[in-house]
């Protein structure tokens, strides 16, 4: 590959890097004029993300499969996840426009850090080498720790960040241990080279290395995707973090975790599918959705409820990897992509409502949502839509995602898994609809006379999320085709 081509394929990452730097620099330049910085820097970040998104989409059209050294692969799948991260970050910035300045004087850094986090995700999702995977994970983690603890005068925020950090450090160490197993067994860190060694025949020590390596790797990946039992940092960090950061962690960052699980297992360790990683993933999936849902029922705080809900959702998403079949259009992998894409808009949308309510009332507990339909019909109806989508009710994107991954499970003969998932969906509907009950049927303490104001930025974010949530469910076919296409190259390698 020529240098020019290398630069072309790296241009989304380079753009993100430049944008982040630009925001930091402009913040310094405008140091004497903080109002100006606060007003313009989010839009600089938004503009930069938009440019990166356009480049990403343009690259998608080239349908590439480009290796950059042995370190990175730019293919439709990695671009799919880059696009998810960028869109997620843009929505998060929109929703943070009023939230962050109201709580801390350090505003510009926030936008820059969000862009940096997107850059980290962009690196992880295209990483094709254990070293770069590890570095990317650390990069994303460190950025995330700072974002979670961004409100440094807020105890919850700092506590969440510290727990996140301690947990993340330990998880990284375990993951690194697993990587060392792989390197020790194969002498390679490049995923494709590892696969080549294993495909030479699983004899002797080689056969023994698979399971422990996968188990240890899953600790690190599971931490990023917040799979049970590596989820425990999540409720505390989600609750303490500034809500826009929570939205980012629960969607874009989680998606990166799934991207890396899919790539490492499908590209590097396909030999271990049947006996090793499918059982592990299935167990994790069942644990994750069941525990996430059962605990979510108990929550009385919207942020914590959504935290557990997003843990449970990770369990459903994981089914896509368990039930990865050879039929691309209706396979688990494309189901997983559609699920993540729909979940991005649905979940961010739900968090945007939380942000709007928090901006107005300062509260995130369920009683703050009592009679929301009277105080803000817009917020209540939007949240209703997002909750229905999370519960998987048609015609929303959430329904499509569940339909595809559950369908893939049934087609791949994982009937028990599918049944457990369906039972879990029923349990989940209970606590989602409980929120609806609060919004529509519970009398607010003050009689609901006080309307909740919704700022234009939040309005835009809400409408985008709602429109996409509905669009994915109603016009399903283009999204399914896109996901199947994105999954196809990876599936072909595998």
């Amino acid at each position, binding site marked *: 590959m020529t240098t020019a081509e290398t630069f072309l394929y790296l241009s989304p990452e380079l753009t993100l890097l430049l944008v982040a730097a630009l925001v930091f620099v402009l913040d310094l330049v405008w140091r004497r004029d903080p109002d100006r910085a606060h007003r313009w820097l989010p839009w600089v970040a938004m503009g930069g993300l938009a440019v990166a998104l356009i480049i990403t989409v343009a690259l998608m059209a080239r349908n590439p499969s480009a290796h950059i050294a042995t370190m990175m692969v730019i293919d439709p799948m990695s671009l799919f996840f880059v696009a998810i991260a960028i869109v997620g970050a843009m929505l998060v910035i929109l929703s943070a426009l009023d939230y962050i300045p109201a709580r801390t004087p350090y505003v510009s850094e926030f936008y820059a850090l969000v862009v940096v986090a997107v850059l980290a995700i962009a690196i992880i999702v295209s990483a094709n080498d254990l070293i770069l995977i590890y570095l990317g994970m650390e990069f994303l983690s460190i950025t995330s720790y700072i974002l979670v603890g961004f409100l440094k005068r807020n105890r919850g925020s700092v506590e969440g960040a*510290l*727990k996140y950090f*301690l*947990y993340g450090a*330990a*998880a990284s160490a*375990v993951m690194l241990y697993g990587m060392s197993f792989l390197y020790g067994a194969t002498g390679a860190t490049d995923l494709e080279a590892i696969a080549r060694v294993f495909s030479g025949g699983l004899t002797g020590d080689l056969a023994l290395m698979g*399971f*422990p390596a996968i*188990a*240890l790797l*899953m*600790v690190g990946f599971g*931490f990023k995707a917040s799979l049970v*039992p*590596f989820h*425990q*940092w999540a*409720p*505390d960090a989600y609750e303490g973090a500034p809500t826009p950061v929570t939205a980012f962690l629960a969607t874009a960052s989680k998606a990166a975790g799934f991207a890396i699980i899919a790539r490492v297992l499908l590209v590097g360790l396909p030999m271990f599918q049947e006996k090793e990683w499918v059982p*592990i993933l299935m167990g994790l999936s069942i644990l994750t959705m069941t*525990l996430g849902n*059962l*605990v*979510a*029922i*108990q929550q009385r705080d919207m942020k914590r409820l959504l935290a557990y809900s997003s843990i449970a959702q990770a369990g459903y998403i994981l089914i896509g990897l368990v039930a990865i079949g050879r039929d691309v*259009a*209706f396979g688990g992998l494309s189901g997983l992509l559609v699920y993540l894409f729909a979940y991005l808009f649905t979940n961010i949308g739900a968090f945007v409502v939380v942000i709007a309510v928090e901006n107005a009332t300062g509260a995130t507990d369920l009683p703050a949502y009592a009679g929301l*339909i009277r105080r803000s*019909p*817009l917020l*209540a*109806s939007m949240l209703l839509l997002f909750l229905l989508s999370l519960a998987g009710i048609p015609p929303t994107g959430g329904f*499509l995602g569940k*339909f*595809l991954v559950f*369908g893939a499970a049934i*087609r791949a003969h994982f009937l028990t898994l599918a049944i457990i998932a369906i039972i879990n969906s029923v*349990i989940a509907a209970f606590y989602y609809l409980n929120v609806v009950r609060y919004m529509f049927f519970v009398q607010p303490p003050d009689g609901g006379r006080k309307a909740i104001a919704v700022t234009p930025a939040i309005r835009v974010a809400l409408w985008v999320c709602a429109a996409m949530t509905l669009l994915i469910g*109603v*016009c*399903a*076919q283009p999204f*399914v085709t896109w996901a199947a296409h994105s999954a196809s190259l990876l599936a072909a390698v595998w």
Partner: protein
Amino acid sequence: MSEIPFSLTWLIPLPPLLAFALIVLFTNPDKKLSARVAIFGVAVSWVLGWWIVLSSVVIPHFGEHAFRLAVHWLPAASSVLTVGVIVDPVTAGMLFMVPFVCLMIFIYSVGYMTFPGHLPQSLNVDGLDPRYSRFFAYISLFAFGMLGLVIAENLLMLFIFWEVMGLCSYLLIGFWFEKPSAYKAGLKAFITTRVGDTIMLAGMVLLYAQSGSLAFADIFSPGNLERLATTTVNVPLFGPTPWATVLAIMIFFGAIGKSAQFPLHVWLPDAMEGPTPVSALIHAATMVSAGVYLMIRMFPLVQAVEHGPALTFIAFIGAFTALFAASIAVAQNDIKRVLAYSTISQLGYMFAALGIGAYVAAVFHLLVHSFFKSLLFLGAGSVIHAMEHGHHATAEHGDAQEGSFDPNDMRNMGGLFRKMPITALTFIAGGLALSGFPIVTAGFWSKDEILADAWINGHSIVFWTLAFAAFLTAFYTGRQIFLVFFGTPRTSAAHHVGESVRSMTYPLIVLAIFAVVGGWVGIPEGFPGLGHILNNPFHHFIASQAEALGIEAAVLPFNPAPVSISILAALGGLALAWTVYGVQPVESRDAPDPLERPLGGLYRVLQNKYYIDEFYAATVIRFTIWLSHLFSRVDRDWIIDPLVNWVGRSGRRLATGLRRLVDEPIIDGLVNGVGSATNASGAFLRLIQTGRVQNYLVVMLLTALMLLALYTTPGS
């Protein structure tokens, strides 16, 4: 052909849906505005709908190039589920009727939904129903369902909209849920139709399994129909039966439920508990005829086996219901119940027509009936409304009658013609159309076509059943008209009635015009004198579709015999009603019905609707209740509760171990029912989330170690 209006078809159901959302979310505090939003929504659909109808009738042989637009929705195992719209002559006919009738009824509701009589007057603030906005939201949602149903391109979409309507029907029948009879009627309707819908859904699943698609175009492809007609399945008791027959009959059960055919007809008379515009809209003009529409749509499947048992079955159910319901209507005293049984009977006519292969006649009667039956219901609503006001007026004057007053009871009425002439004249127009009054009314032409078809094609049993039912129809309609509008007022309430407001009478006038002229588009070409003025455009329009689908729809030769019999039945029935109720009007509301003596015990049986409700209560319902008691025993005493208790006890033990971390309410919550068991396990699991990061790390490392241990354990 010009694509423009047709490619907009998918927009038709959306304005009412939007209106529903707007009313529910935003405009509901303002009742008048909500009504306007609803009317505007359905008016947009109406304009769009008629634009499409007008564009389609000018296309010659429209049925052969019907418009179909479908996009892929979901990948299913071996095929793709589509969403899409279809416009063919039958759809066009429905699009002519549905949005227009909806619009008329919406407008009528503005005046009708005043403060209901069963609520304490102290709650009356603005003279309007307290749930006025909600009413308009529900009927908008209903209009969405019905419009979506008629343009649906596949059976799955049709079923979704079918269920949307079922939900609206339930909500609207029980709209005045303060009345126990109303919410019971809502439940009854919902549960009874569920019986049919379940069989229909099973039929759909089997149909999908057999044909690999639910799109009408795929199901009705000649190859698929041929296969369904020739491959057989072993049905218990009946032996090998072609799939087409089995599927057609299963799907027909959905129609039996929705269109209230025997034996699932019991819900419709009770559904009259809903506000009268609902009875007109849902339980006369549109939703109940959706069952007929479904069978019209599925007709290629029904007749895939020529002269097969599916056709016979449908003809039998239809003809039987037509006569059965008409005979019950003779002995009812509730003005709306007479009309309800009449609706059941007329829907039976349509099914009988389909069963004997009179495809075009069934479509024709479906459309015509919707116009005159909604007119009759709205007229009845106008009368009831006036009677309620008359009752209030008398109550204020202090000369209220003893006992409870039923404004629906025809025995309380009499002599209303002079008090409310517009209602009376329009009601009589509708009534004459229902009885098939010769030549002028629409009902004559549509009914005559069915009878002629039966006669000419030699279905003599169906013919005589329907002819006798036509006679009874004319008789009970005449009875109703004479009891309500002629003679002298039998109560002081009837003395004090006045004409209804204009928002109610104008829709009556418009519908009355359609009830008369609507039939002229379908005058048989062979009819002496009149046949060649218009050349039966309706028949040619629908027949083009029938031919495209391979359905026999030739123009029938004119035969004077069935026409004479039909005229005789109509006039004979009306004349008999006049001799019994017109010549010597019933004088007082307590006087026995003049039919009671000559009919004797039969009258009692008819009045009690052949005791079908009692029969169900003694058998099906009793059995169900017994079964549910049994299950509740299983649940409470034998299996589930002990299990839950066991879970609870284990939870309690665990919890005592962790007493420092557990609070009493959680443990107490552990014992009651499955719901709280789920809840409780959540509470227990929450304990793991201690908030101490040290514990988290221990859990993580233990998990990793456990996984490794699992691996090293021999035999894993």
